[in-house]
């Protein structure tokens, strides 16, 4: 089972356009890793480099033990020899082949006997619900159908490493669920190492065994879904993951200084669901004014004002206050995320490692409304 190792890789498209910068990443064999990051942060570029469609500008790339690409050593293994699968963000279907031929192509290359080719192609087309278009050309398909053909083309090969670039973006909810299940099955049945790009945080959180968060070509954090949510390595990750987004409080604001006394702290973060309303002034309670209440489907988001600072609070218990009312809110110090001037996470030492490790479930609670 192949592992993928990126050793300080970078990619510059031109002098001005650096797409990926100095990334170290280790993808374990059998991993289901999800790449998350804002649009244009270099996810596609990463996948393309791993696939060999883009040359590294710097660094080294290994698949298994084998060096695949390294400008310093002058080594480069061409994509067709890397034996991995890639589903393109833009599908890249072959316009001159029918759906069936598109899917069958890889099997033909592997010189499978006609019978087996037929059955495997038929199977995967059935699974992805495109069997009835087998004889059509890509230009005669709808967007979602094209995307499924692109997926089918790779799945039929059962590659050991599968790179997926937003493979479900044009599919409807129920198809998406089915495809997801299909991917999971593939991952488990063939122990495929999967690297997956998605914009759907919920998808990332539920599918992935590991999540890698990128921003502006740099890796921000790699960890389990839980880790990423509960212990964001820096302000970017904290902000990017979670909905409503984390509240940020400057350490030198009135509120900030009240909450925190740890040195070096520049910014404090508190997730909306970690703020609680209380009726009375308990130890950590702060007086707050409710600015607004938004129901967002089974949960509520409250806009609070505390010591001149706006905070969002989210709760699953129907709030007993009205907009405009004064009340108290409570922030447990151990729930605070501390970041230094560079935006890096500081260990919340003052309050020890008191933070309760959340389980997967609670982490994802706030993901789904994205």
């Amino acid at each position, binding site marked *: 089972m192949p592992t993928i190792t990126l050793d300080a890789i970078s990619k510059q498209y031109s002098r001005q356009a650096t797409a990926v910068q100095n990334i170290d990443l280790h993808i374990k064999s059998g991993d289901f890793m999800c790449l998350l990051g804002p649009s244009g942060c270099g996810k596609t570029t990463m996948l393309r480099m791993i696939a060999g469609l883009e040359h590294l500008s710097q660094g080294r790339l290994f698949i298994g033990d084998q060096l695949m690409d390294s400008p310093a050593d002058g080594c*480069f293994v061409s994509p067709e020899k890397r034996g991995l699968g890639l589903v393109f963000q833009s599908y890249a279907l072959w*316009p001159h082949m029918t759906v069936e031929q598109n899917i069958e192509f890889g099997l033909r290359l592997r010189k499978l006997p006609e019978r087996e080719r037929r059955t495997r192609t038929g199977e995967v087309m059935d699974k992805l619900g495109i069997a009835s278009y087998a004889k059509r050309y890509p230009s005669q398909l709808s967007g979602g159908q094209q995307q499924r053909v692109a997926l089918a083309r790779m799945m039929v090969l059962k590659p050991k490493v599968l790179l997926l670039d937003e493979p479900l973006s044009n599919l409807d909810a129920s198809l998406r669920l089915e495809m997801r299940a299909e991917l999971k099955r593939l991952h488990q049945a063939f122990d495929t190492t999967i690297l997956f790009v998605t914009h759907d945080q919920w998808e990332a959180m539920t599918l992935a065994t590991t999540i890698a968060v990128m921003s502006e070509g740099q890796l921000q954090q790699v960890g389990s879904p839980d880790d990423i949510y509960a212990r964001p390595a820096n302000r970017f990750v904290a902000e990017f993951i979670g909905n409503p987004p984390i509240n940020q409080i400057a350490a030198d604001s009135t509120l900030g200084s009240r909450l925190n006394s740890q040195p070096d702290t520049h910014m404090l973060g508190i997730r909306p669901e970690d703020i609680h309303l209380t009726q009375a002034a308990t130890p950590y309670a702060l007086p707050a004014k409710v600015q607004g209440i938004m129901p967002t489907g089974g949960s509520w988001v409250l806009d609070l004002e505390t010591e001149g600072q706006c905070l969002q609070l989210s709760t699953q218990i129907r709030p007993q206050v009205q907009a405009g009312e004064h009340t108290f809110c409570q922030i447990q110090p151990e729930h605070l995320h501390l970041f230094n001037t560079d935006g890096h996470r500081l260990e919340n030492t003052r309050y020890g490692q008191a933070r309760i490790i959340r389980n997967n479930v609670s982490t994802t609670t706030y993901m789904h409304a994205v």
Partner: protein
Amino acid sequence: MVGWITTALPNKRGLQLSLKDPATLLGLGLLTTFSYLILAPVISILMDAVNVNFGDSTRIGAEQGSFTLYYLERVFTSPISQRLFWQPLLNTLSVAIGAMCIAMVVGGIMAWLLSRTNLWGRGWFATALIVPFMLPTWTFALAWTTLFKNRSMGGQPGWLESMGYSSPDWLAYGPVPMIFILALHYIPLVILLFGNALRRLDSQLEDSARILGASRSTVAFRIILPLMRPALMSAMVLILADALGEFAVPYILGLPVQYDTLSTSLFRAISSRQTGVASVLAGAIMVLGCITLTIDLYLMREARRFVTLGGKGAMERRRPLGIWRLPATLLAATLFIIGVVLPLLTLFLSTIMRIPGRFHLSNFTLDYWIGTNLNTIALKNGILLTPEFWSATWNSLRIVGTASVCAGLLGLLVGYVVTRTPWRWLASSLRQLTFMPYLVPGIAFAAATLSLFAVQRGPVPALYGTSMILMLALIADQMPFASRAGISAMTQLGKEPEEAAQISGASWLRRMWSIIVPIQKGALVVGIVLPFISGIKGVSLFIILAVPATEVLTTYSLRLVDYNYTQAANAVVLMIAMLAWGGTILTQKLTKTGLAQGLES
């Protein structure tokens, strides 16, 4: 350009990578091949321009073979230069540019009608309108004079003249008819190259402009034309270069009114064996061609902007013409009548009349086609009953057919390298190199090829005297068509389809064979059909390089002219056109492409 080459030189890493890159390796291979096939002959031709030629040593007063500026001076600065070069240059440029503009406009419109609309009889017109390119240009000139000839030419009166209208000289001879005829001749080229590119254009790109409220003309000028630039430029440079070298039409229609072009000057120098002057003139034509190419190179420098066939769901929709359907169809029909029916008819009539242009029943005969026991010396039967005709036909088909298939494939490869290699100098030198033969006078090119292949050189045995040398020379000679078709098509194909195949594990050969070639089927067909047509009606290469066993139709026809069987000779020409047409149809059938068809069929 030199500075630019140095900046484009790859660094060490680039070098390492490129040397593993099939595109670059292939490119280097092609470069070597074509340097040998094309560059060497071209250089040897140009050398004659500055070396004292055989028999000129007395006049110049220098040893034969020594360096001289005599020829250059004669062509550019001597008192005669005005008549020898400058005036012809001006004339050449006006004719070439005029013909090119008309051909581009009319051909462009026709290509669009044929490939993107619901014109009546699209499929049929798509093949029929290619025919003008299959007829030698002089047949148009013949048709033209038959119609418009006036008294100043003497001889059999023109049709208009016999109907009582005497056409003025400017209509009968000189630039006007030349431009018109050459435009007619080149329209098919535009239809083929441009139509082929249009078919690969995602119609959603048009759609999105129309949604924004762009009128038809805005869509045409701001969206379609810029995106079609590779194909348009290819058609343009091919037309310009060909028109620069076009000899028959200017000679026939220009002589009566003393309207000379560079090619007529060149022809005169060649036929009176003034090799030095001929080389200078050939060089001048090449320089003009190179200027065109440089413009092309400049305009095409950012190739990625012209990728119209990417990965994401392209759509091919035909636009209903509505009330314009009938007028558009009539337009196509008119073009068909003027460009195909008229010349073919005059040509055909000239094969069945004893005395040209004389419409008496007694003057008509089918003897030249199917007569038997004719009372003539060398042609006992009509050509269709003459074995020599058939063996020449077979030679033509065999030699030209093989050469054009090779040229077509090589052209696509050139296109591939030009668009894929990271080495810009490689791309541009291949581009220029493969275009060269077009600018070189056929006889000079053939003669130079002969010197190259008459002896064994390295791994290449002495090929002179075999049909192999003809094929090689034909391939080299027809590379301009093939490579332009390949380059323009490849520019518009994104990398993604190939990358997807690469990911599936397809080797380079497999990718070429299963992905690139089929997607570019249309371009490949154009890259085969154009060389085939131009090769089968070509003369000069055969005249120098052929040996008796390889007599082809064109040389056979020339021989008939010599026997004064003009009618039979014209009949052979007609048969050449038919073969070209048949070959085109066959290629389209075999590859299941037609200009009017979409990607899915």
